[in-house]
């Protein structure tokens, strides 16, 4: 059994109003060191894959097809033994 941990975030070139709001709130609270904040999605997928290579290939396909909209989002993922 493997587990895929997928992160999806808005591309750097796309304004992230949620991130901006959180950054503003953190600055207001005195966390002046926060220069920027980006908000994204975290997903865990339990996989019934034969091996790691196959799992990687399939998860990439899942990201491209559904999990991320590559017009506005970037994705990355890790495959861990689950």
């Amino acid at each position, binding site marked *: 059994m493997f587990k895929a941990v997928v992160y999806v975030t808005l591309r750097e*070139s796309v*304004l992230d*109003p*949620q991130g901006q*709001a959180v950054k503003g709130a953190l600055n207001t609270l005195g966390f002046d060191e926060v220069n920027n904040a980006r908000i994204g999605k975290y997903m865990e997928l339990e996989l019934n894959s034969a091996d790691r290579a196959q799992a990687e290939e399939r998860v990439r396909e899942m990201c491209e097809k*559904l*999990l991320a*909209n590559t*017009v*506005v989002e970037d994705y990355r993922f890790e495959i861990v033994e689950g």
Partner: protein
Amino acid sequence: MRVAVIVFPGSNADVDLYNAVEDVMGVPVDYVWHSATDLSGYDVILLPGGFSYGDYLRCGAVARFSPVMEQVVKAAEEGKLVMGICNGFQILTEVGLLPGALLRNRSLKFACKLSGLRVDNNNTPFTRDYAAGEEIQIPIAHGEGNYYCDEETLAKLRAGNQIVFRYSGENPNGSIDDIAGICNERGNVLGMMPHPERAVHKWMTSDDGRRMFTSILKTWREQNSVTTHA
């Protein structure tokens, strides 16, 4: 002429759209469930607003894989008129019939009000009954209507006169170039965030949306050489 209003689980503007077609166009219209696999009997396909599949993951992301969407793409390729309103617009971008994407409103607030639009292209099958540059009042109701595309796509949209509607007053969502609605290169697929189906009678505060439906009817009649009897 027969019109399909596609219904996804979570659609909520389907009844408004159906009623607008019935009231303004006076042609047969059917609700078509998202699992349908044949749209060959329809001339115009409408995708209503709402929250298809709860807008889980991203708005329109799951609806885009509904069985009916293959048929919607096929209809668009055949040159049939396809219009997506609000969530329908989001689905059309997800499925790739229209470029770009709809992001969270810049204000992070759900915007629900009457909104001023400018008709920047009245040379489409959906807008021919408006004057060029005409300002109209159409209600909006969305939390994710912030249209975004990259610079290259924006240049293409402008060059191809594909920006059909822009917000004429305050931009309610932060969309690039004040975009409220766009069409594809061929002009037979249109997506817009505002709801023309909610502005088809005076008692609705505005009836400026009526002419979208009369435009569609006129286009179809011309294409099919149907003579009207006064």
